[in-house]
């Protein structure tokens, strides 16, 4: 928590306000935060626990500036994050852009650089987020801590407060549909955010049930293309089910996905891998793959 707040205050962009929203009464956190002496820091403590969506909305309401960036309490920003993103936001072709950047997904097993690729021209956002073209994951992944947008957009399309999970995906899908809004990535391939997945993983696995993810996808069918819907079931829903070792779900998720079309070969392979190879081992394989096949440096090619 302190690490996150400090990384927000220690930015090369000086003129910022940092609003920490404590989701529900927590005197201890409040006390530690008040020890940071910086006039740019403001702390808002909610009287009851609202969840991620409600807490973010409360922060937006509190914000005085036109641009807003989010940071979850496990994550860190690198010092130039806001400066580089703000510059890109001001040059954006959208009046209300959603600016994202690459981030380091960090676990005990090692680091990965996500998203692996940026959206293709005219690719629907839901397909970018959920459909993969390789088995190595993290292709179209977006972490809320890497997003910067405008207050106007966040007021037009606030976060849903009644969701246990996936409020961030729903916001991205809804928000990017708003007139004058759109998702853009920084041209740079360098990460600006550290996403500490270990801590996130714990939180997700306790709060998130695969049935919940399934019903979220079912209610939000209009936001997803059929391909994205199938991939979401095959990958995201099965990730939760496999993590909880709910073998009964193995066939039911697969059959539910098949009702809406044929899963792609990649989806099928991913499904098998997710169910039969434990997560830490999968992660190690991906890290090894990325290290070995990382684009080669070159010396002297006349650039």
């Amino acid at each position: 928590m302190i690490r996150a707040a400090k990384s927000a205050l220690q930015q090369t962009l000086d003129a910022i306000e940092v609003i920490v929203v404590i989701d529900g009464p927590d005197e201890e956190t409040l006390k530690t935060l008040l020890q940071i002496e910086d006039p740019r820091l403001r702390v808002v403590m909610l009287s009851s626990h609202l969840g991620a969506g409600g807490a973010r909305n409360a922060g937006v309401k509190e914000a005085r500036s036109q641009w807003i960036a989010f940071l979850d309490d496990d994550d860190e920003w690198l010092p130039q994050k806001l400066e580089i993103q703000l510059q890109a936001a001001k040059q954006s072709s959208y009046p209300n852009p959603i600016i994202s950047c690459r981030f380091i997904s960090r676990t005990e097993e090692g680091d990965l650089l996500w998203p692996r690729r940026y959206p293709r021209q005219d690719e629907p956002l839901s397909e970018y987020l959920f459909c993969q073209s390789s088995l190595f994951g993290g292709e179209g992944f977006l972490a809320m801590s890497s997003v910067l947008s405008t207050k106007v957009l966040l007021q037009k399309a606030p976060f849903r407060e009644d969701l246990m999970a996936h409020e961030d995906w729903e916001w991205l899908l809804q928000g990017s549909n708003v007139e004058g809004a759109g998702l853009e990535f920084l041209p740079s391939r360098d990460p600006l955010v550290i996403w500490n997945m270990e801590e996130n993983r714990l939180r997700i696995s306790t709060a998130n049930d695969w049935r919940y993810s399934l019903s979220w996808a079912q209610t939000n069918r209009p936001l997803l293309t059929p391909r994205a819907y199938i991939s979401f079931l095959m990958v995201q829903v099965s990730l939760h089910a496999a993590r909880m070792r709910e073998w009964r779900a193995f066939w039911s998720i697969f059959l539910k996905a098949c009702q809406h079309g044929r899963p792609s070969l990649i989806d099928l392979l991913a499904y098998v891998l997710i169910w039969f190879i434990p997560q830490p081992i999968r992660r190690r394989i991906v890290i090894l793959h990325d290290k070995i096949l990382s684009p080669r440096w070159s010396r002297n090619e006349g650039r």
Partner: protein
Amino acid sequence: MNRSGFPSITVIISTRDRGGHIVKTIETILENDYPHFDLIIVDQNEDDLTETSLKPFLKNPQFRYLKSHTQGLSAGRNLGISHTEGEIIALTDDDCEVTTDWLKELMTAFYVDRRIGVVFGNVESGPHDSTAGFIPTYFRTEPFLASTWREKHHVNGMSACMGIRRSLWESLNGFDEMLGAGSTFKAGEETDFTIRALLTGHFVYETPAVRVIHQGFRPWEKGRILIQGYLYGTGATFAKYLKCGHGSVISILLLMGWRWAFQPPAVDIGHRPFRLLRLKAFVKGFLDGLMAPVDRSRGHFSSSKLFRTQKG
């Protein structure tokens, strides 16, 4: 400084035989808007051409000038670094120009992981006539974090765009002064520093976000000499590790051998492999390295005056 907590950076440039051309390098560095940096020029020239051209900068509080009678790039850099307190040391060459966000990007790179001790950036070439010659460059499109010495073959950056944590420089006793341009073994100081950093558990990060523009034009016929020097230094470096008891680095050598035999070379000049030339230079460097006295406690070649004059 109200943006408290950013590390202080010292830029070190060791210069020789560049006359007044270094002024352009200095100007681009001073254009950086990083709030907390200074610049030290170590002048190893015998004449005072460089000194005269630097007069206008002497009033600048961020600028320091050191005249030195040391020889070799590594000795010059060590001297410069020992005169400062910067937590991060930024290195470039006297024939490079840096971008205005060079220092900010360099600092950001160190935040990627606390264990990063060395950062390399891209060295791009300035405009030049590629029919007449070339400019040594280093280029990668994706960042890479090397966390063990087994990943050494992924990181081959040049000291023309390099950042070092000062504490690492201290614990490695600085650059080996027998390696690097103008020294006995002619080259290899960054390779040596990288390997020793990895061997002591530090990470090495390479990122295209940190960039310098290299203006060091060389005619094509000088390519052979450059390669010769580079592999001579590399050979000596590996001989040193064997003498220091780091037998494990042999596997780095095997990977290099693979590249030598089957892949385009690390220093690719005009797409000619020069395989025999490389092998000869490497073996010569390796044998000379085995003969040279080594100070095992410091992990350096012993730079005795006698040895230096012998090899001339």
